[in-house]
């Protein structure tokens, strides 16, 4: 039997120096905020890059003032070259997928709230946790570096398909040093995320407080746990792929390059490699990555909705099982990205079947949300609006997924804007709405001040309308044969589509500008916001039982004990219509009533 005082004694005390407090902090809450800041920097970069590529798609010959500062050769006279367009597009995707969609919903919110939800003082391995952030930060800096080295960042897209990604600068600007930097950065990023999983998983398994059975964990913590299992098994596959890609570049090996390949009239000195091998390794990571981005959002949104509906979801367990099913199935479906890759057509069927199956847990989750919302008197605030927006985005993106899951239709729509619309709605915008919802909901706890609700609601409506204006027309573009990754529309049949592109560009600029309201609200509230009470939303989970912001060891030295399921709403207790998880009070719940 372990000693009672062991846990507190084994943990680090509050830091006193500035460096330990704010820079190389071991505190999971500071690390969570650091991840949030990194995500914010990355999303601003990613958004500006998306503006640049959108302007080019609408007005191909338009000069964008100052563009030449980003590249030596990519923007003569501030007009984007086709290669530079691809470079910016690649960087937009890379920053968004890795440093925003993975970092914020999972690493930022997860770091801050997972130990609090489990009732722990900190993560089990605080030094590894600190290294997790700083490794990710190094990866971010390395990725930024590619703008300033050689002929700029890689142009191969975030998927970096071989063989062009494995050949060096003969394959185009950025395909030399740019790819090596990209692969190095991503390999470093993988290490950072593995350090993260090393903390998240043992925390949930081993550091739960008294009375906190697994089913008493709130839904976001379940989501982060499932996500960290996915991250553990997928980032550890991407890293070897990146190592092999780097070796093809710098050591002259031939893992991904086939024999007798002639590029730009030059015979390549490689032989016998497999281009499909890269796709298999990449998508084995790439598809779970989609769920790494979206599953934490599902947890956050459920948490926010429950608190604002004042009643639990129809089924806590089915929701958790469904998120788990998404995680398992996400490994079996990755081949649906490769229907036109020359893979055996029977393999396509094999991958199509689980892809259609994955719609079942997704649909169950959506139906649980909708069924729970039915008849609920939901409190309308910025957090709940973004949570509802998340559901809307997820349904819209999910419906187009039904079409893309079937090889016969997907072959027609492959690499068109239909796909761009699909994945932006599901993994990008829905996940982003999850981030916004989480921010409005948890900001009072993280920074001890309230955000401005009115600005939050304005931000929601502008963003909600804006993203539909941006991504809805892309379905039409795709059906009309609009091919993605083209930098200009010179073919006859594509000419009429330019007007749609211009509309989308204007909508994107407008929606992007609306985000300034959020950034203003964030910064203003951080310093001038109303001081937040401990439990502004009358929530029940453990984060609302402690001060805002929480003290260094979360529970102020108290050994917290949990007595209830996480969502005891709609009950009659001494506090009102809810019962905190750590309240010893016993009340009759609806299920117990005769």
């Amino acid at each position, binding site marked *: 039997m372990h000693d009672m005082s062991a*846990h507190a004694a084994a943990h680090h005390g509050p830091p006193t120096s500035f460096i330990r407090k704010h820079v190389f902090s071991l505190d999971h809450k500071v690390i969570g905020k650091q991840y949030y800041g990194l995500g914010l920097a990355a999303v601003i970069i990613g958004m500006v890059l998306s503006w640049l590529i959108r302007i080019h798609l609408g007005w191909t010959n338009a000069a964008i003032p100052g563009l030449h500062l980003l590249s030596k050769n990519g923007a003569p006279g501030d007009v984007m070259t086709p290669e530079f367009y691809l470079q910016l597009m690649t960087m937009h995707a890379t920053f968004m997928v890795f440093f925003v969609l993975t970092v914020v919903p999972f690493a930022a919110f997860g770091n801050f709230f997972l130990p609090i939800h489990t009732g722990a003082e900190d993560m089990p391995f605080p030094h590894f946790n600190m290294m997790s952030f700083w490794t990710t930060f190094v990866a971010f800096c390395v990725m930024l570096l590619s703008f300033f080295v050689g002929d700029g960042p890689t142009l191969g897209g975030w998927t970096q398909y071989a063989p062009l990604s494995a050949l060096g600068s003969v394959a185009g600007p950025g395909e030399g040093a740019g790819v090596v930097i990209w692969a190095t950065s991503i390999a470093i990023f993988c290490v950072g995320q593995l350090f993260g999983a090393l903390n998240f998983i043992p925390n949930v398994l081993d550091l739960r407080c008294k009375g906190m*059975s697994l089913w008493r964990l709130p839904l976001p913590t379940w989501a982060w746990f499932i996500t960290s299992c996915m991250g553990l098994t997928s980032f550890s596959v991407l890293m070897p792929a990146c190592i092999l890609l780097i070796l093809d570049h710098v050591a002259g090996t031939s893992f991904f390059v086939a024999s007798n390949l002639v590029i730009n009239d030059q015979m390549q000195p490689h*032989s016998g490699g*497999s281009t499909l091998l890269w796709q298999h*390794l990449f998508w084995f990571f790439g598809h779970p990555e989609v769920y790494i981005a979206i599953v934490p959002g599902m947890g956050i949104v459920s948490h926010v909705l429950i608190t604002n509906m004042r009643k639990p979801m129809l089924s806590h367990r089915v929701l958790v099982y469904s998120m788990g099913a998404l995680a398992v199935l996400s490994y079996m479906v990755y081949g649906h990205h490769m229907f036109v890759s020359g893979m055996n057509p029977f393999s396509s069927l094999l991958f199509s079947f689980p892809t259609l199956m994955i719609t079942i847990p997704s649909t169950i989750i959506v139906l649980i949300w909708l069924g729970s919302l039915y008849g609920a008197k939901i409190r309308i605030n910025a957090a709940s609006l973004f949570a509802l927006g998340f559901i809307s985005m997820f349904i819209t993106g999910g419906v187009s997924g039904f079409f893309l899951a079937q090889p016969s239709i997907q072959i027609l729509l492959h690499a068109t804007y239909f796909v761009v619309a699909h994945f932006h709605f599901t993994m990008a915008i829905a996940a982003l709405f999850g981030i916004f919802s989480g921010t409005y909901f948890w900001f009072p706890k993280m920074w001890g001040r309230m955000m401005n609700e009115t600005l939050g609601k304005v931000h929601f409506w502008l963003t909600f309308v804006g993203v539909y204006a941006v991504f809805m027309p892309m379905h039409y573009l795709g059906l009309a044969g609009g091919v993605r990754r083209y930098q200009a529309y010179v073919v006859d049949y594509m000419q009429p589509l330019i007007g749609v592109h211009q509309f989308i560009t204007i909508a994107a600029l407008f929606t992007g500008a609306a985000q300034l309201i959020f950034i203003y609200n964030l910064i203003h509230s951080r310093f001038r916001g109303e001081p937040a009470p401990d439990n502004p939303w009358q929530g029940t989970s453990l984060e609302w039982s402690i001060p805002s912001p929480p003290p260094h060891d979360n529970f102020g030295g108290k050994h917290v004990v949990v*007595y209830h399921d996480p969502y005891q709403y709609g009950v009659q207790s001494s506090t009102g219509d809810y019962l905190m998880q750590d309240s*010893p009070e016993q009340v009759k719940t609806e299920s117990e009533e005769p």
Partner: protein
Amino acid sequence: MATTVHEPPKVEPRRSPQPGHSGNGGVRNLVPNDGNLRAVRDYSPPPSKAGIWVILAAITMSFAAFTSALVVRQGGSSDWHHLTLPSVLYWNTLVLLASSVSLELSRRRVAVFMSGPRTVDLSPARWLYVTALLGAVFVAGQYVAWLQLRSQGLYLATNPNSSFFYVLTALHGLHVLGGLVGLTYVIRKLNRVVLRRSTLDSFSYYWHFMSILWVYLLLLLWMKL
């Protein structure tokens, strides 16, 4: 009659580590009697128990990825020249397996040491030093294998089999080196009598896993698929 003075028996402090170093104090997870709780775990195990499985899962996935790459590369091309493995590798295998044995011996000694009185000197770290030495010999032996291949004119990019040989042995060697760093940490903690059993157990899982992984890699590189 002479009075015999009996000295009171000396109570030897046990060698178990300080309470502050004995785990995560999972006693907090006991179910309180007054609440209607369904939580059934009496205590939570130290997090390094789960942590080591997380690490081993990540390493397994990485080497599974390399394996699938090797299988695809070997099966799908005509330029695969199967190389004869340097004979030193078989000696290295024995050295690494021996290091696992010495680690187990050491684990037993530490168990006796931790529960026994301070008077019994078992120098529990002795076998850990042997493990470290054997580990270092293994890494050096792998380097010798590289030199032997180099002398045959087989470099990283010479043919796909040599590419995989260098990549797999290098990454496995790096993991063993990481294990040696971990072993240094374990020895340091043991010498200061603050080692947790769970840390030693987790380390031994890692080290044995490295031995098993090496046997697997050797078979993989030796076999013609």
